[in-house]
């Protein structure tokens, strides 16, 4: 009685939806960034589950690449957030509205 592939995929979908919710409702850029990471990790969970249940390892290799890209993305994104804070003095999305007007 092992957990089925559907259980893993449903869990991954739920995690992705929670991350999506965070991106939509939170106003702090850092928290939005954390929720983006959550969505990436949810996708990796689905990939690992598919790879395990299909008996191949291509999914695992893809997860390796995803983790590498996510690390690079976090470094660049946080540098951009720090530059933004230096220029504007805030990281709240509500107050970063130069393009709106």
């Amino acid at each position, binding site marked *: *009685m*092992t*957990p*089925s*592939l*559907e259980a*893993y*995929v*449903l*869990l991954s*979908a*739920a*995690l*992705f*939806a*929670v*991350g999506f*919710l965070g991106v*939509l409702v*939170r106003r*702090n850029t*850092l*928290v939005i*960034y*954390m*929720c983006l*990471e959550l969505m990436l*990790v949810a996708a*990796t*969970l689905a990939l*690992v*589950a598919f*790879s*395990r*249940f*299909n*008996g*191949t*390892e*291509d999914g*695992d*290799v893809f*997860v*390796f690449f995803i*983790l*590498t*890209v*996510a*690390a*690079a993305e*976090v*470094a*660049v994104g*946080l*540098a*951009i*957030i*720090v*530059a933004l804070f230096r*220029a504007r003095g805030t990281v709240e999305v509500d107050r970063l509205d130069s393009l709106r007007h």
Partner: protein
Amino acid sequence: MNPAAFTCLSVLTLACAIGVVLNRNVVNSAMCLLLCLAGIAGLFVQLHAYFLAFILVLVYAGAVVALFLFIIMLLDMQGGAPWRFRLVRALAGFAAAALLASGLGLLAARARLAAGAPAASAVGSSLKLYAYQLFTTYLLPVEVIGFLLLVAMVGVVVVSRKPEEGPE
């Protein structure tokens, strides 16, 4: 793959993910993210992807969350800036997320996925096979990823330079 362990880990992961979203304090959000990643690493172990669990803890819990906490400290946001709750925006966000979740859930429930038991041999647990794949089939992506890391490093140095120095 133990069903009880799967249930515990999935509940922990989901609860911590919701904690990331709903926490008022940014530091608490980062800590919830850390716990959530630990739960995911546990799920990877359940799926016999030991190497990936190790990498996840090393890269995410070790580097990414530490970087987040460092930036939170640098920007001095701890405790401050509670998020203003706006009803319309929250309702729209919840509706969109529920729509996405139900769509993905229906897709996962209706798709004809591999029935029942996983493959007998845990391929992902063999580091040798994994490295063989990386250096034969996926050699070009590995090179590209290496170049991407170099570009990201240079980009971070350029972006985080002090503005008053300026180019030239």
